[in-house]
């Protein structure tokens, strides 16, 4: 049976290569950070929780001390890319399409044909495993078609990875924070407080508070990902899912999107709202936000309605 461990082996190998290339490039902080992440993928299942915890602390220390830098591995220049792009045409999109097509078509085939009875994949893990398969296939196709130097995909991947930097593990860290919140009983505490404030049994008001909390916390922190474990632990899971029996997938997914509406309205999300205003040399630094508010508010109302209808009215 193919499990997540196979995928972790693949990811571990990729991060090991990135770490070695960073080492060769004398970027010690990057080399250390990606080596620790590689170790987490390769041996995480075989070491104690404490060792895993220390791995996390070491990664956070490197990132916190500013040890991660951008890199500039050898790649093609702008003119050469223009020429290649004109020669290769829209076929360049095709290898990228292999990945979602493999994963989605594979998942559908696996779930709706007798293939599923073979037990080839770990239960409910097939989509992400098929994503890994899609990546390998796409890479193989691209290599055969384009014939780049053997190290090119690793170097090009490192260029992108180092531009993302420590943010690459932020979502995983936030999910871990969610788990610590759950362990510490944060959900029960807020659930108790909130049910004292929100009229008992008012599902709609609770949905409203959840979506409002996602948007407001996102606006304050500038980041829907950070707001998510907080609001899920506070209202999404204890009240909407557990107390009122709502559909977890709808509450989970659309709750995040309610947060994205907050991202459109806050100067704290500088990358999306303030940086472009500067890039476009707008006189008003909040000019982009001003054009987004109308969309964000209307869409937020839609999200409340989608959660209420999708998670409650169309469920059970």
């Amino acid at each position, binding site marked *: 049976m193919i499990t*997540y461990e196979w995928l972790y082996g693949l990811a571990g190998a990729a991060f090991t290569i990135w770490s070695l290339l960073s080492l060769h490039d004398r970027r010690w902080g990057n080399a250390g950070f990606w080596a620790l992440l590689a170790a987490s993928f390769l041996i995480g299942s075989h070491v104690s929780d404490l060792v895993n915890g220390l791995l996390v602390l070491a990664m956070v220390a490197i990132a916190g001390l500013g040890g991660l830098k951008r890199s500039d591995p050898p790649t093609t220049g702008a003119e050469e890319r223009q020429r290649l792009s004109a020669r290769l045409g829209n076929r360049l999109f095709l290898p990228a399409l292999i990945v979602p097509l493999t994963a989605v078509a594979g998942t559908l085939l696996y779930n709706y044909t007798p293939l599923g009875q073979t037990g080839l994949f770990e239960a409910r893990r097939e989509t992400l495993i098929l994503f890994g398969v899609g990546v390998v296939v796409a890479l193989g196709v691209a290599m055969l078609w384009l014939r780049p130097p053997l190290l090119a995909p690793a170097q090009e991947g490192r260029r992108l990875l180092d531009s993302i930097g420590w943010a690459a593990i932020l979502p995983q860290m936030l999910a871990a924070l969610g788990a610590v919140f759950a362990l510490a009983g944060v959900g029960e505490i807020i659930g108790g407080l909130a049910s004292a404030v929100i009229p008992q049994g008012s599902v709609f008001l609770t949905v409203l508070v959840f979506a409002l909390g996602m948007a407001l916390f996102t606006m304050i922190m*500038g980041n829907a990902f*950070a707001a998510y474990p907080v609001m899920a632990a506070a209202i999404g899971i204890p009240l909407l899912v557990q107390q009122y029996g709502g559909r977890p997938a709808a509450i989970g997914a659309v709750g995040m999107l309610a947060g994205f509406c907050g991202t459109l309205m806050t100067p704290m999300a500088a990358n999306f709202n303030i940086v*472009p205003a500067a890039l476009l040399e707008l006189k008003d630094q909040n000019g982009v936000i001003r054009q987004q508010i109308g969309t964000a508010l209307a869409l937020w109302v839609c999200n409340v309605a989608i959660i209420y209808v999708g998670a409650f009215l169309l469920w059970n």
Partner: protein
Amino acid sequence: MNYWPLLGIAIVVVGFALRFNPLLVVVGAAVATGVLAGLDPLAVIEALGKAFNDNRYISVTWIILPVIGLLERYGLQQRARAVIEGMRGATMGKLLVAYLAFRQITSALGMKDIGGHPQAVRPLVAPMAEAAAMKTHGELSGDERDKVKAMAAATDNVGLFFGEDIFFAIASILLIQGVFESAGYRLTPLQLSIWAIPTAICAFLIHGARILAFDRRLGSVSR
């Protein structure tokens, strides 16, 4: 009832708002929450280590970077530009609605980096929108031109935010999966990403209508 663990939430909010390194903020909040809930500090580090380990699948998605990087080496960004340039000739409203659709669809297919402000909006979408607006409405004031450019940037954001979650192998979807799994609810990425579709449709209709209304309003002012 011991309310002290809530301080962890406050640390997240304040730490992010004050722009500390987010990884430090998260670890600080986790340790504070655990300790205030009465756990031993070592036990909190163990819990954090276990949770990080259990959620490794979220960071697996980066294995796609060699594919995207390799295609960029052969001109993927330039190809995306050519597609966007092909939208030329339309009115500003039609151009931005077409870009909105392009951005949503490519993000939903996992190619969220072929748009963006430095790569696409500044060099292409904003100047094209400005030129199209002037072709329809004649000379525009500085304020109006700024509004057109800002609308181009806004369209990129809306298209990205409400397209990317349809792609299942993206951090936000897997973060949702991780948080729910920690609480005992096992969801699959496709179960979650399918729920991003209604909002994506609403986003296209709402923002598309606002773009077209904006184009009409510009006209009525200049006439």
